[in-house]
């Protein structure tokens, strides 16, 4: 029924799913590591192929639809359009990078760990490709379950409470969204769950008002947007770093993606009505998170709060509803994923080499590990959106969009750039420069495979920073389609 492999979306679901299940039965840690790396590289290859075979001519290769539940008119429909491809590329890139970067980390019961990682990849890819609301909901939840188990099993000391909070939060959000989906389904033309029929039947403005919030809360929890963010720092801190990378690099993009794919086109009137509230929340969250990031002593928490600030900007830019903001979000989704994974890799390296993440206990690493320091500074500057790095283009476009919407939002949000510089440079100063202490004196510089993987990230940072056109072109259709729907409401 679902088994056809003549198209990319189906392959992208089946490949991680099947390899993930096989991984559970592997005996040794080394085998599990190699197997999952192989699987993730193959997935990357499939995404690469789908990028190559795009356009009208190959449209059949990039979509799929099987009848799933006849009685309620739901089909297992997946589509790879520009935005989907970009996020699938991010997901497919992230996993091999994560696997390689954490190659030396020893996990108890590694086969289960890597199996669950591949299953979460399957869920994430499904979310980014779903063209049917029920399928979307299905994968939305499925991406969560493996991550929950990963974080609770291999995480830090307070992992059980932290990840459970995360789980309950997202689960409440998704259930509310499910109610919204069911309501839309019953009102859609021909009672269908397909994205197209959802798009075609626009809910009346009175319904939109509350449906908007049912969906928005689900997505806001995932992103996370202030005041729904409280699960995030704990979850990031307590998860094993490989899982934190998945959470922050890819999983938060589920929320951003879902807002663009589902929320904006479905409820344009409500979006116009509530845009000030949402942008207001996002901007408040940006400043708030940046301020908290300044006083963090734990590297992981610092990166977590900086991530809230960045996501806040993306959310604000989406709701600015203009070309510039939307394009900025599109590339920033990809770039933020790359940058933050880079940051996590460095945090992981420091923690593994020195056994601590406390900024106050570190210092002077640059004297002993120059290569690590150089790469870190580049990634940190990219996180600051310095020109020539990838984040610059995205943030510039987003601030431009916000400026067009309302100058004052742009001014207040702009403060977060200054604050970001404060906490990032402070972190660089305290961790890498200075005289060092007995602990950091013992650090060894990074090995070859770590150099390679960080270089890949640095290359991506510069490539996307100097030449962002491919990304803009890739997402052009999606951006236009969504903006058209909102403007001709």
């Amino acid at each position, binding site marked *: 029924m679902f088994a056809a492999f003549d198209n990319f979306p189906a392959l992208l679901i089946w490949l991680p799913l099947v390899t993930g299940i096989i991984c559970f039965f592997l005996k040794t840690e080394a085998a599990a590591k190699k197997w999952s790396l192989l699987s993730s590289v193959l997935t990357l290859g499939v995404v690469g192929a789908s990028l190559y075979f795009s356009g009208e001519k190959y449209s059949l290769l990039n979509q799929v639809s099987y009848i799933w*539940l006849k*009685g*309620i008119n739901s089909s297992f429909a997946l589509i790879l359009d520009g935005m989907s491809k970009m996020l699938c590329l991010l997901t497919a890139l992230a996993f091999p990078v994560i696997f390689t970067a954490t190659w030396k980390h020893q996990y108890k019961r590694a086969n289960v760990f890597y199996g669950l990682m591949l299953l979460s990849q399957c869920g994430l890819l499904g979310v980014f490709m779903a063209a049917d609301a029920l399928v979307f909901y299905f994968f939305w*939840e499925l991406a969560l379950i493996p991550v929950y188990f990963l974080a*609770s099993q291999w995480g830090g000391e307070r992992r059980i409470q932290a990840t*459970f909070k995360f789980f309950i939060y997202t*689960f409440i959000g998704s259930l509310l969204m*499910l109610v919204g989906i069911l*309501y839309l*389904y019953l009102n859609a033309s021909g009672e269908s769950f397909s994205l197209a029929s959802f798009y075609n039947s626009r809910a009346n403005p009175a319904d939109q008002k509350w449906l908007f919030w049912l969906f928005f809360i689900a997505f806001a929890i995932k992103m996370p947007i202030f005041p729904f963010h409280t699960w995030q720092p704990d979850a990031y801190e307590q998860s094993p770093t490989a899982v934190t990378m998945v959470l922050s690099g890819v999983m938060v993009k589920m929320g951003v993606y879902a807002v663009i794919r589902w929320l904006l086109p479905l409820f344009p009137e409500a979006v116009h009505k509530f845009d000030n509230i949402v942008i207001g929340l996002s901007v408040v969250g940006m400043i708030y998170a940046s301020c908290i990031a300044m006083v963090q002593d734990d590297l992981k928490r610092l990166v977590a709060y900086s991530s809230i600030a960045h996501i806040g900007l993306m959310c604000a830019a989406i709701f600015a509803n203009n070309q510039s903001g939307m394009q900025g979000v599109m590339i920033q989704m990809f770039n933020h994923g790359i940058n933050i994974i880079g940051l996590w890799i460095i945090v992981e390296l420091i923690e593994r080499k020195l056994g601590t993440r406390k900024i106050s206990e570190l210092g002077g690493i640059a004297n002993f590990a120059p290569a690590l320091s150089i790469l870190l500074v580049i990634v940190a500057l990219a996180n600051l959106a310095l020109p020539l790095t990838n984040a610059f283009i995205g943030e510039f476009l987003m601030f431009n969009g916000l400026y067009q919407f309302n100058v004052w939002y742009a001014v207040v949000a702009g403060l977060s750039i200054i604050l970001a510089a404060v906490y990032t440079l402070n972190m660089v100063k305290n961790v890498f420069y200075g005289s060092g202490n007995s602990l950091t004196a013992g650090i060894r510089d990074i090995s070859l495979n770590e150099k390679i993987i960080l270089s890949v990230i640095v290359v991506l940072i510069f490539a996307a920073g100097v030449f962002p056109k491919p990304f803009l072109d890739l997402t052009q259709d999606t951006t236009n389609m969504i903006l058209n729907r909102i403007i001709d409401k």
Partner: protein
Amino acid sequence: MGAIILSAVWGVVMMYSGILFKNKATPKYIATAGVMLLLVTNWLEYAGLPIFNVDTKGMLEFNSFGLVFNTVIFICTLFYFLLSGPDMEDVGDHVAEYFALIFFVLCGIAIVSSFKTLLMLFLGIEILSIPLYILAGSDKRNLKSNEASLKYFLMGAFSTGLMLMGIAFLYGATGTFYTEAMNLGFGKLNSMMSIGIVLLMISMAFKVSAAPFHFWTPDVYDGSPTVFTSFMATIVKAAAFIGFIRLFENAFGKMHEQWQLLMAVIAAATLVIGNLTAVFQQSVKRMLAYSSIAQAGFMVLSIFALNSVAKEGLVLYAAAYSIATIGIFAVLIKMKDYSFEGFNGLAKHQPLLALLNTIFLLSLAGIPLTAGFFAKYYMLLAAIKNGHMFWLVIVAVLCAAVSVYYYFRVIQAMYFKEGNDPGLKVSETFKTMLVLAAVIIILLGIHPDWLLTWLYN
């Protein structure tokens, strides 16, 4: 018809088997054969080849809905026998009698799933209930078991009285016992009819343990021997629901709007009370008792909505809930310690059991890829389709979120906490059946139409 006659006969066979075979293990095999026979007979009837042709004067009706429901019940019973049958031998000396009583319950269920007159409903409910009073007290030397039995019996007798009175009122108002001949809903309801309907609603709510008539449930479920709690909380509860929806659809369906609010209140109260109380339990057995109330709250949604989606959903819900709960109980029976701490570190010592238990718990929580998700999904869909009282849907999803808390406590104990080896002794058959149950849960979670298409023959 086949199922009614055969289950009654097989109950008698089981009683004699206790006299004929001294070996404690033998009745289990005879009972398993009996359920298989029931399945075959039921299936033959579904396929249009009934073995027995009895003229019931239109008092019973065997449509595909009832027969598919019977099939679900018999499959669940089969699982129940194969998983927990051996544990019945530990309850007392008269194993064959327990099986006989269970077959009488099945007979009652088959009547409840096919009644067309209130008399048959009453008979079915009574045939189903009386053996349960005995089963609840089957651990004779245990004071809690005695208490459970007595409590269940007294409360049950009370609700039976209410039901009879309701039936009498309806008969007085309409002059008939036939549900479809009552013609309620045309014109104004007189007070006699309204009283009758409310009384029936209360007595049925009691049988399915819906709030505020649920107070007996935790004590009875907790006090009864765990093997029989498993049976009462799953198969019997599902059967009571089929009677509930048949009654309200056939007899009172036309005046749906007049009692709908009452049903919504019952559903909301059941959901809130069941879920919130389950959160505070320290024993898994008691938690499951409250969880069964909470799940009943979801099933009441189908009677509240009363449309075709609701009926499909109820069958799916009955299957998903029963199989998952039977599975969890089967593992629980093997444990010595029923507290949450008793499950600590189970994943390390019994990885397979822990994994399967997790699947069942995820299903009860309604996570996608398990049958429980689609069950909840159909209920919500039915309630939204109903058009008004949207607040009930929001209450339901919030309660579903609460339920994650207590189901996941077990998962957390099994996987993320350290504990001693509970030293479970499980046979290969047990493991195989448990795996099979988990596979069914997942298959129904991928494609519920595999069950639901049978409803439309």
